[in-house]
């Protein structure tokens, strides 16, 4: 069998594929962050909490109302999106136009509160959620065993990422959004309801996080703390990609999943640090990120 740096090629291909799958999660999450920052200039530290809420909602809806996975895939993000819009309307709107640090601190506080309340109610050991029966099992790819669910995750994540990019960059609604960030007063002058647009954008960004949460529910431990760890990683991804760049967030997300996956193969101890290492290097060489516009 051919080897690369002492690792069989088959193992390496498996790790690359897994990296892409994890990267798809990062892409979904960093995409939401990038949309919110790019269009609203809000540094959304509640993003991890929204991801967690998506997963928690999936489990809780199933336990209390018997809502199945397929319905949750739509209902949970919508519910969390509504909560997001409420946060925007009642809280974030009041600090609009202030320095970024205000939105950062406010959303961080909101995230801590949500996480704290849920920890008090549900504990930290995690809630049980079984995988839908259709996804049980997997296929043998020759170099690895690929569970059906992971294949589903990557397909869904990429579809949603592409759809979002298309909507923002190629449609009229996206054009309004981008115009709103350039000059919101002028856009308002054209008869567009800008405050509503802002609420919807925040709600949409948060929905993306919750959607990733629903995708995560069957494979990761669903706990109130699940968002806080991934948030920092995802922020690093956004910084590497360039704050506010939609396509940059998607591509960097997948790229970082692969980098992390390779580190897990060659030097697992460093796998939680490698993304930050990349971030340091990128910031030193290209301060605006790989895909960011020079300020």
């Amino acid at each position, binding site marked *: 069998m051919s080897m690369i740096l002492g690792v*069989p090629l*088959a*193992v390496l291909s*498996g*790790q690359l594929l*897994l*990296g892409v*799958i*994890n990267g798809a999660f990062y892409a979904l999450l960093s995409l939401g962050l990038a949309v919110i920052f790019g269009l609203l200039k809000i540094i959304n530290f509640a993003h991890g909490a929204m991801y967690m809420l998506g997963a928690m909602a999936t489990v809780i809806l199933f336990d209390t109302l018997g809502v199945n996975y397929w319905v949750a895939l739509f209902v949970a993000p919508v519910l969390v999106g509504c909560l997001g819009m409420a946060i925007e309307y009642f809280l974030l709107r009041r600090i609009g136009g202030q320095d970024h640090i205000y939105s950062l601190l406010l959303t961080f506080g909101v995230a801590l509160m949500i996480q*704290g309340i849920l*920890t008090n109610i549900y*504990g*930290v*050991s*995690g*809630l*049980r959620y*079984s*995988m839908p029966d259709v996804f049980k*099992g*997997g296929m043998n790819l020759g170099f*690895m*065993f690929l*569970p059906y*669910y*992971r294949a589903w995750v990557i397909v869904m994540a990429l579809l949603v990422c592409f759809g979002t990019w298309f909507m923002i960059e190629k449609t009229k609604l996206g054009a309004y959004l981008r115009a709103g960030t350039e000059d919101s007063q002028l856009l308002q002058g054209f008869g567009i309801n800008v405050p509503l647009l802002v609420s919807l954008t925040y709600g949409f960004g948060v929905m993306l996080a919750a959607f990733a949460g629903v995708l995560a529910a069957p*494979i*990761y*431990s669903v*706990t109130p*703390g*699940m968002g806080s*760890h*991934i948030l920092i990683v995802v922020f690093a991804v956004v910084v590497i990609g360039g704050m506010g760049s939609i396509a940059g967030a998607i591509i960097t997300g997948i790229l970082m999943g692969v980098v992390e*996956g390779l580190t*897990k*193969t060659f030097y*697992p*101890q*460093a*796998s*939680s*640090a490698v993304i930050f290492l990349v971030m340091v290097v990128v910031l030193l060489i290209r301060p605006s990120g790989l895909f960011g516009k020079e300020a």
Partner: protein
Amino acid sequence: MTIMKKLLTSAIASTLMVAGAQADISGDTVKIGYLADMSGTYRDLAGPNGLIALEMAVADFGGTVAGSKIEIVSSDDRNSPDVASATVRRWVENEDVDLVAGLVASSVSIAVSDILEEKDKLGIVSGSAASSITNEHCTPNHIHYVYDTYPLANGTASAVVKEGGKTWFILTADYAFGHALEGDVTRVVEANGGEVIQTLRHPFPTPDFSSFILQAQGSGADVVALANAGADTTNAINTAGEFGLTQSGQTLAALLLFLADVHALGVEAAQGIQLTTGWYWDMNDETRAWSDRFMEKTGVRPTMIHAGVYSSTIQYLNAIKATGSDDAQTVRKQMMATPINDMFTSNGRIREDGRMVHDMYLAEVKTPEESKGEWDLYKILRTIPADEAYRPLSESKCPLVTGK
């Protein structure tokens, strides 16, 4: 040197105490500080419910001991040795705390025991796993109560090797506890004629285990052992299930699995996993009666740590009652002299290295058919006698034992 000095002073102190023969309780209050992870990864193992167990012990004791009232303070250590050290320093220096209880993350316990030794106060470690706490990190100022990595390895690893799991792949959490467990497991596997063919250290915490599980599958080992804890373990078990690890003929061994973890996984996902535990709520009438009281207050069944916090607090208060003193060395000596027979264990005893040795149990998670309720999770396969379970003193590196 400091230990010798301490032993000497304590010997003198206790002689004086006997001569004085009167209640000698600092500030006329016995103050217990409960320090644990109250909100993070280990919250459900000890956390707020451990504080309730402590309060139950104090209430059962009547709220006073040797004529002095018992007070409880508590704090969240956030799994940080720095936060824990600052809290304990404040407690013993300014707030006259006599006993630090709880103590979950091994790194926290090791940091705190250093301060307790410096200030000559007592600590009872109920939550930590690292066997080094009463080995190279032993002090005359702390007791390790519930379990440690030595019996975990002894119980589970030797059982699995005897069932034919000869080659091992160990997936280790990359910090003090994981390293200790990995070392203990390797020793047990090799002693039983098995071989560890690969160890892999993963960062703590790791949300996604797919990459590591894939490497474990690729290793071709008979047994994939998880030397980690909490969410890391449950995540790894879930992922192993997803990737069909056991279907492909490998055995999964979780070396540290708590009742709360198994409850979170559910019997469907966790069935058949063997584990070693220091206590289980459904063992006999006494354990069930206490667990029922605990559940009334908390809504959940107690883990072995909750039971250990209750039991050790009662032992501590009994020692104060017997000696009339809250001096750390006097109390520790009295506790060492008293066998422990209660809802937690029978014939438990505290050795000079601070290790409380008691029978441990090899358990197996029930199948969905066997489990009759949400908390009906384990069947006990075997009792591991205390002397067989824990590290013998002849292997100890603790200066209190070796005299160096």
